[in-house]
């Protein structure tokens, strides 16, 4: 068999192999195996540290237990500073109170009054509390804190001890207070509000039922400074206070650039290095070294920037930079005379 016939045979085998494997992946795609198979296959045990979610049926609850009695000390140490000793603080989500009030004229929406499943309380404390140290509590501590928050709501007695068996069985006061918003759960869900697309003489009185309350005017600061100050429709002047602020100088501050940045931006560094070798002109540390101690150096350099010219360092003339604001020229000269040789680099 010639060498080339041998190659052809190898080629044919490869083609057949490719066809066979393509057929195999087509079969697999329709069946069970992944089409790409990227990523690492893992076991559920590998995911245990992350897989901490707890469902209303109790799936996901860990081993361990904790009760009201043990929970109190942990709560006082780790929770009360934000939530209050009785779970009453409204600085953050209010934990306790208002049980049974949701259908009244003055509903108090708290963890105790609102929550439908105690498992959610466990899940949330476990994954996200304490706020400044999430996932630092042991499973036993989470059971104990869950029990204690329920106790603060008078939902359970002080002898309650919770574990994975008992927690899902607890019936919360608002267990029946939730229902799925079916119309919002799919694109073709049935909307609950059906408005007509009326075009003429629609049933609107034009009566103003609400406007921005006087008490909150100005609460959002100077509106004039919160929008682009261009165009024939401008933001601002919504209140006398805002007007006063504007008149008093409420402009946004724009940072002044550093002298070395300025030197780069206006083109000085095209011809001058800050430190080191001479380019078309002297480096700034050379200028500094020559003129630093000389009386009148500042005025001479300022005049040079304004008029331009040649002669001090060679025959290459420097163009005038008189177009720069005088204050910028002063900043550049002061910087050249004081800084470059001390090691500042652009």
């Amino acid at each position, binding site marked *: 068999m010639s060498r080339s016939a041998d190659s052809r045979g190898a080629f044919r085998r490869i083609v057949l192999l490719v066809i066979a494997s393509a057929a195999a992946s087509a079969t697999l795609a329709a069946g069970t195996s*992944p*089409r790409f*198979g*990227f*990523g690492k296959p893992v*076991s559920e045990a590998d995911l245990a540290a*992350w*897989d901490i*979610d707890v469902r*209303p*049926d109790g799936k996901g609850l860990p081993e361990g237990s904790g009760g009201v009695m043990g929970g109190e000390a942990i709560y006082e140490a780790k929770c009360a500073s934000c939530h209050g000793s009785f779970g009453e603080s409204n600085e*953050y989500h209010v934990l306790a109170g208002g049980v049974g009030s949701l*259908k009244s004229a003055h509903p108090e929406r708290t*963890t105790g009054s*609102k*929550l*439908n499943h105690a498992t*959610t309380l466990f*899940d949330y404390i476990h994954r*996200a509390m304490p706020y400044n140290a999430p996932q630092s509590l042991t499973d036993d501590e989470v059971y104990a804190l869950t029990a204690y928050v329920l106790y603060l709501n008078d939902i359970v007695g002080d002898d309650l001890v919770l574990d994975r068996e008992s927690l899902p069985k607890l019936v919360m006061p608002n267990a029946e207070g*939730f229902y*799925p*918003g079916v119309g*919002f*759960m*799919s*694109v073709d869900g049935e*909307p609950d*509000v059906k*408005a007509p*697309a*009326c*075009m003429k003489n*629609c049933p609107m009185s*034009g009566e*103003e039922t609400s406007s*921005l*309350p006087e008490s909150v*005017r100005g*609460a*959002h600061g100077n*509106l004039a*400074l*919160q*929008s*682009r*100050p261009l165009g*024939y*429709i*401008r*933001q*601002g002047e*919504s209140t006398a206070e805002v007007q006063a602020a504007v008149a008093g100088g*409420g402009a*946004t501050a*724009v940072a002044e650039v550093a002298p070395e940045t300025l030197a*780069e*931006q*206006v083109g000085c560094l*095209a011809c001058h290095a800050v430190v080191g070798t001479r380019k078309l002109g002297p480096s700034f540390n050379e200028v500094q070294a020559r003129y630093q101690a000389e009386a009148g150096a500042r005025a001479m350099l300022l005049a040079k920037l304004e008029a331009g010219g040649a002669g001090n360092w060679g025959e290459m003339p420097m163009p005038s930079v008189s177009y720069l604001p005088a204050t910028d020229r002063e900043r550049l000269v002061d910087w050249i005379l004081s800084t470059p040789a001390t090691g500042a680099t652009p």
Partner: protein
Amino acid sequence: MKDSLLTGTRIRPAPENHLGEEVIQAARRRFMGGALIAGAAAVAAPAVAAGGETLDIPDWTRQLGPGVGTYPYGMPSRYEANVQRRESPGLTRTKQSSVSFTPLQSLFGIVTPSGLHFERYHAGLPEIDPAQHRLAIHGLVEQPRVYTMDDLLRLPSESRFHFVECGANTAMEWGNSAVPTVQYTHGMLSCSEYTGVPLKLLLEESGYDRKNGKYLLAEGADGAALTRTVGIDSALDDAMVVYAQNGEMLRPEQGYPLRLLVPGVQGISQVKWLRRLEVGDMPWNTREESLQYADFMPDGRYRQYTWIQEAKSVITTPSGGQVILEKGYHQVTGLAWSGRGRIKRVDVSVDGGRNWREATLQEPVMSKCLTRFRFDWNWDGGPALLQSRAIDETGYVQPQMNQLREVRGTRSIYHNNAIQTWKVAKDGVVTNVQVS
């Protein structure tokens, strides 16, 4: 270089088209004096029309500017410094669980610059090393898998434009007008081009249980380890696991290096810093879908899993807190969007909803994406009540505030998609009002 020109309304008379304080006042005086300038002609001439304007050569024409590479990652002009995300004072207790609002009043078109996308964190902003980040997919699947970012970047990707709106956008307006500008009334709304891997592909790779796998749990890697339930239908339809936003990797504020994107669904479900997806057979009833993000109905019960964002629109110019400086032609413009698909039509009313005219939709009009609308308006200097009304491709019509309240009451917090009213007073001052 001196920044004596501009910024804010502390403006010196400036060259070009900057309106200075005096200019504004002059326009005002002319306006108040009844010198009616009608139509576009008024705009063609600068506001300083009185004595014309002698053009001068400005500094920037007479000097060399900074060179290429001065700004390796470019930033907006310093004169745009007012255009910022802002918080609503007193809304939240901590910066770590808070929100900032997109300055819709200052934006054009439909894409939100990534740095102005609204922020919502529940436990602060995590700084995630993408090399160490992992996405786990498990639960009712044949083979649980863990993906690195390298793995995800290797999978086939898609790019699409979608809006993200917080379920609590416009929450402060349920009971009454409460905040002054469109930034605060509607600014928990942004729109980006996203790139990532279709979630359907990842679910198929995992061999998910097609019979019992009805829901997904999505979990973030932040300190809140935030979790939300997602319906499998949404997941299989157009949801994606995205790593890119407007051509670059996601911003940290939007979930770098990975977030879930469930188009048309409320922001809380677009879990940022996504690290885990679990397939299950029942919803999880997480804290963010029971204690929070559930809609309090008039009967004292809660509607749960209300994830679709229904059709909504708002006029961004002119809008609350603005002042119209001259009579005559102004383009009214705004945004419309629907979590159920494309916007079909937007109507605009200038008389508080009694009479409507159809606005022009700016192309492109994309599904579950912001659509820009525009409407030509000659302001006659009289009082006006501006409204916009979106209609989506399902025929759903954005409701008036009173129509929404008839069904949902005033205490829901979430999913306020009512028509917004901006009142234009005779002096041109625009304020946030509600009408019946």
